């Protein structure tokens, strides 16, 4: 019905291929991802424990763009393809998109991610670039607020470490740090190839199988992240800093209990997202009052994240009415009322529409499919989760969560 078809195959070397056909589309997008990211600070591989510097995954992502002494971006461009990459806390992915033939860029993508071509000079050169990227994020008040909220919540968990690492990490990462990180984590067993294309999927799959024949797995078992024990309590309950801003920023985060089961994580995420849409947005009639009273401005938001190793809920705003905003958040969290059935029904429709729209967004679709595999859940089934929720279920989920661990961060004008 939704103008697409899926095809999945696990290759002999352990790599997983997921292909999605989008008929009539001119573009193709191919993404090659690994379940490795900012969380990989301590990891176990083949019965050995390794400590990586913060930001290793991200630094390596920057360095991967060298292949046979050339910049792969230039090589892709010569094939009429554009390339990019990203590192999150738990994934690193490389991708290209093109309106032209896919064979050559596909070969290049699979070749460059499976061959490390770096040296001390290239690692050194990257340092200034990453330091500049760090500075760019550091001067953005919203990003800084969220970063400090994570530091406030977590004492040991790697969420407290920036995906880019600290400036000290960036200054000290060396060639061998990256090379050993690569050897442990960039293996076909840990690799997912996602393609979204209008082309014939059988032919694309054959091509990928042909290329991957020359890349056997070199590891016995996949490296896994080791998450240190994390206390229930927040690391610091209040923190403030100064920045060159016009109005203060305030963030309030609640450190929650992670869920053991991935489906529960998805369900809790969804239930909380619907609740947030219902109570912290225009669907709530009080929203107008908060604007009228200047408690919130256009810069305000909330986000939730449930996973198997961490969970949190955070609210933030740029506002002069800091105390009023804090009271507002407290009252929302304390009075977790059932969502009005009419509001719930409308938000359910919105959520269903979001899922339909995702299927047209090549990059978003590929990322979600990759993430589903890395976190070991079925992407298509996850889209149906919304049907299992009703107002009672959302209320039951909200009522089961302990909101006692709170952290506040404030950014004041300097």
């Amino acid at each position, binding site marked *: *019905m*939704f*103008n697409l078809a899926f095809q999945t195959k696990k290759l002999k070397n352990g790599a997983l291929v997921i292909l999605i056909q989008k008929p*009539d*589309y*001119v*573009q193709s997008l191919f993404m090659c991802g690994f379940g490795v990211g900012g969380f990989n600070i301590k990891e176990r591989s083949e019965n050995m424990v390794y400590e990586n510097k913060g930001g290793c995954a991200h630094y390596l992502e920057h360095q991967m763009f060298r292949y046979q002494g050339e*910049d792969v*971006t*230039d090589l892709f*461009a*010569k094939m*009429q393809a*554009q390339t990019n990459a990203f590192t999150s806390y738990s994934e690193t992915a490389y991708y290209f998109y*093109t*309106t*032209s033939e896919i064979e050559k860029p596909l070969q290049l993508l699979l070749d460059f991610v499976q061959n490390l071509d770096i040296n001390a000079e290239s690692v050194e*050169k*990257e*340092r*200034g*670039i*990453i330091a*500049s*990227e*760090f*500075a*760019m994020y*550091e*001067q*953005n*008040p919203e990003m800084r607020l969220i970063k400090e909220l994570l530091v406030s919540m977590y004492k040991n968990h790697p969420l407290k470490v920036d995906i880019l690492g600290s400036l000290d990490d960036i200054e000290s990462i060396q060639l061998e740090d990256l090379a050993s990180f690569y050897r442990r984590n960039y293996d076909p067993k840990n690799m997912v190839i996602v393609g979204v294309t209008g082309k014939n999927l059988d032919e694309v799959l054959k091509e990928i199988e042909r290329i991957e024949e020359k890349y056997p797995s070199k590891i016995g078992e996949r490296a896994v992240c080791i998450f240190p024990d994390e206390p229930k309590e927040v690391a610091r309950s209040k923190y403030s800093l100064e*920045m*060159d801003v*016009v*109005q203060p920023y305030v963030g309030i985060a609640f450190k929650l209990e992670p869920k053991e089961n991935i489906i529960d994580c998805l369900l809790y995420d969804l239930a909380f997202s619907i609740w947030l849409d219902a109570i912290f*947005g*225009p*669907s709530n*009639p009080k929203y*107008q009052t908060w*604007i*009228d009273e200047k408690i919130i*401005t*256009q*810069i305000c938001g909330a986000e939730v994240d449930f996973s198997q190793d961490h969970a949190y809920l955070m609210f933030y705003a*740029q506002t002069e009415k800091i105390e009023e905003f804090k009271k507002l958040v407290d009252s929302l969290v304390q009075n977790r009322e059932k969502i009005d059935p009419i*509001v719930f*029904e*409308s*938000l359910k*429709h*919105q959520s*269903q*529409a979001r899922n*339909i*729209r995702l*299927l*047209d967004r090549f990059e978003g679709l590929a990322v979600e499919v990759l993430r589903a595999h890395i976190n070991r859940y079925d992407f298509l089934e996850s889209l149906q989760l919304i049907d299992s929720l009703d107002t009672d279920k959302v209320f039951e989920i909200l009522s089961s969560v302990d909101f006692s661990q709170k952290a506040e961060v404030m950014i004041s004008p*300097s």
Partner: protein
Amino acid sequence: MEKICTDKFSDISILVRSLFDLDPNTITAYNVLVYMLKSKTEHFDSKQKLALALNHAYGMRISYSLTGYGKQVALDVRFQCIRSDYISSDSYIDEIINVMEDILFRPLLDENSFEEAKYMLKSRLERLEEDPDSLALSRALKLADGDHDISIPIHGDLASLSALRYQDVLDLYQIYKNTGKIIFYCGHSEPRIFNLLEKIPQAKKIENKMECIQRKSTSYLVLKKECAQTSLVLIYATSISFQSPLYYPLLALNSILGQGPVSLLFEEVREKHSLCYSISSSLIRFDGALMISVGTRKDALDQVLLLIHEQIERIVHMDYPDSLLEIAKKDLKDLFLRQKDRPNSMLEQHFLDMLLRREESEEQRNKAIDSISKFLIAQAARQLFLLSSVVVEEGEDV
């Protein structure tokens, strides 16, 4: 109404565009009006009612925006809704039509929403001043030529906002209401939506009003701000309009200079000298200008400026690999091809073709791109003239 009927997309995308003269005396009021227009309507007379209706209509989206086109500004209303054959509800199209009708014909403008819009716009403008990159850009555009449209801030300004009266916005709304609209539709065919859109008074003609910014003198400004790194923005006059034979060479020039990661600025300033993470060039086509922006260390600024100058000189002297020109040509062709997968890009291209009276086929366009040479690009580069240079550097506010 311009229709692109296709079953390729899940969404139907509709653009209702009005064109007005870009005027420093009204641009702030238009920003306030836009906020008020999207807040509520006669039937959906609160944010909650409107939000519920949009969400219930399967996440129907409405957005308002203002975009500069040289001496004109476009006030856009965009609708996005899932095509009806994907939704199993008999009343779905009725819901869409009801919301669209109210939004288009019965917005509710009152003093409360006026005060709210002013407050929201004030926060936004203050926020733009707060961000070093936005601050450098706005100052550089203003300095480039205070008498040219390029200096008019499309988001409005704080001084005009504080002087704005409710009646000013109501007067502007009357002008908006009586202005013929340009309507574009892309997606699955929905005859009932066509009927509704045909009720909107259509613009009789549209004309391109642009004037290339002139080469005058170069202005420099250094501001200090507590920030983590220095922002630099340079504005150049290109003196090249859409009708110029150097228009396609200018597009290639921008690509070679710094549009993306395969460019001289990216290669030399970032990759070879590690002086920044972000550097790029872009065209302000309707003003005949080119902009370069970069975030770097304060102590590296002189070197960055020198390298930027050197890259422009390399283009002037045709001193760069042929492969870069070939990539630029492929990129240009690709840009037009990629639009076919993006409804909003298709609508925008359609508008530009109408505005600029362009009737070239894909084949003709590709031929024009193929004929771009290093010599023509060098000619375009020789016309670049630095109008303004603004630096926002790390330090105490002055």
